[in-house]
């Protein structure tokens, strides 16, 4: 029997904005889609996020940010992921992120960037495909 492990996702509010509607709704949608979700709550530092990701042994870190600090936040998290050698974890970001910044984020190593125009289904499909591809590769 195929004992595939449930996909584990850490949804993190990084940066100082308090807009958590997207993070909370997405968390519940990912759970409905059969994933295990850990939600960090507001205002987490890169260190806190990475520590939680390691502790919870997640496949995906989903960062929600609407403060405009997405580039510096992504840099810090990616740096920390490198230091902790968890670069195999999928980093995705969502929030109010201007289109011009999306290539900048993917270039430095963010696997996927989702904005207000993304649907939950798109995000779920993206995570499913990427994690499955990674598991098959390893």
């Amino acid at each position: 029997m195929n004992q595939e492990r449930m996909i584990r996702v850490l949804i993190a509010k990084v940066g100082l904005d308090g807009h958590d509607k997207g993070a909370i709704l997405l968390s519940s949608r990912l759970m409905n889609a059969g994933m295990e979700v850990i939600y960090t709550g507001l205002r987490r530092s890169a260190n806190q996020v990475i520590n939680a990701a390691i502790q919870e042994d997640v496949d995906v870190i989903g960062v929600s940010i609407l403060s405009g600090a997405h580039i510096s936040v992504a840099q810090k998290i990616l740096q920390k992921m490198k230091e902790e050698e968890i670069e195999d974890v999928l980093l995705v970001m969502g929030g109010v992120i201007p289109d011009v910044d999306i290539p900048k984020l993917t270039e430095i190593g963010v696997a996927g960037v989702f904005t207000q125009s993304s649907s939950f289904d798109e995000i779920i499909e993206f995570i499913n495909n990427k994690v499955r591809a990674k598991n098959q590769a390893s």
Partner: protein
Amino acid sequence: MSSRDKEIEKIRKAKITWEEGTLKKNMQQLRLGKSPVDFFTPADLEDHDFLENVGFPGEYPFTAGRFAIPILNVMWGRGQALGAGKAVKHSYGYAGYGTAEDMRDYYIERGKTPARGGGPNIAFDLPTQIGYDSDHELAEGEVGNVGVAVDTLKDFETIYEAFTGDMDLDRIASSWTINAPANIIIAMYIALAQKRNIPLEKLRGTPQNDILKEFVARGTQIFPINPSMRMTRDTFTYCTEFLPNMNTISISGYHMREAGATRVQTIAFTFANAIAYFETAINAGLDVDQFAGKTSFLNFGGGMEVLKEAASRRAARRVWAKIMRDRLHSNNPSLWTIKELGGGLVGASSCTKQRPINNLVRVVLGAAFSALIGEPPMAHPPFDEPLGLGHSKEATQLSADATRIIIEECNLCDVLDPLAGSYYVESLTNQYEKEIFNIVSKIDEMGGAVKAVESGWMKREVTKSASEFQRKMELKEIVSVGVNKYTDPDELEIMIPRTPPYKMERREDAEKRQIAHLYEVKKTRDNIKVQACLERIRNAANDESANLIPLFVEAVKDYVSIGEICRVLREVFGEAL
């Protein structure tokens, strides 16, 4: 049976005849099992009493509006040269970015607002709003981003260099969108005024200072709810005594609506929060008629069903008037109204990133219906709201022109409450009034808004509604054009040029410049005095009865930073997330 009852009975019978005749026939022709449209008659408004339910503009229950002549009509001039048509552009000017100099230069370049009270409407960056200095670890990447960075009084002094002479602090009104550290910002304004020899009683301004909704929706709370409410009490008592022309609070529904609350929940939660604030002031020994005039509401946000929005606002006016008169026992009817900053009836969350110029159509509809209920027809937000920080000059121009067109071409503001007497709008207004009161009663049973917020109930309710809205969007029961419908490849994405409102390149290195300023201030101030101020604040914070504002004034004059003050308060009060 009275003649009115007879009349209603006649209409009711006629409606049945219509339903079984004309309507049924029409449904059969169109092969419909159920009619997709409603029609309302006087029978839906059985107990309607004009004087009781609507009344005259400027009189209880204020359904038809706050004033017999709305301020808008006076400001606009209508033939007089009062210049509000020009000033409307600045009223879209909630702004902030970069460092204090960037902000000062922005205001200087923007030019004078040709209206009374044309002070700055300042957006602060998130570290300032959450009480962290610009050099704090969590501030990295956030400094000068969503607003201007303010660490010490030095920054305030710099911003207000743009406001001197005939625009000095005694001539303008300032607006500060800040909550947890609101009293420190008020203290900075006081310190600045004292340095300029301006009497405190001349100071006019509005801090947002509405902490309860931060816990529910906006998320910039710093301290737990009880010490937070204590600081709100401090605002009320201090301002009532020393700053009689300063507003104390701008109670907001907008953020809860944006976070997903329904229109009825938004109004009910806002009023429940308002009751909690007012009771806090009353328990501190103030008389409601003494402080209520200096409180205001921000606005209630909105949605695309503008006719329902309009009815809900008419209901809100009536509910608040009843709360003020019957529950808070105010004896001054002019204080029973919703003093609102205003805004359209459509919120930012109705706006879409897809085909964003459609947002102009959306907000114009909201603005037109605002006009129909006697509120300023603000076509807010400018259409590029979902595209990132800072509305372009073009988007702001279009919004300002929309307001002008509604007022000066359509003359929509020339009649008050033209929806009054509409069978549909009146019956909906009645229904909303009942629903709002029901939720307020439910919150009373929980022990009031402070308890309902502290337990997380209010936030859970908002989240439930957000989730329900999302579900309906996905099922296309709620349509958003270009988002969940009309998305085929043959639909056109349209964009016009957008000029940033700010010198964006300045935002790039704002953090570095701001931290350098902060170090400079810390190096040149008297650090022994700073420590003494912080100790006095710590001691006073431990004494629940103490008002901290005088100590904040003293501290900011010695250039103690917001981050330093908040760190001490965090140590005493604890922190809430």
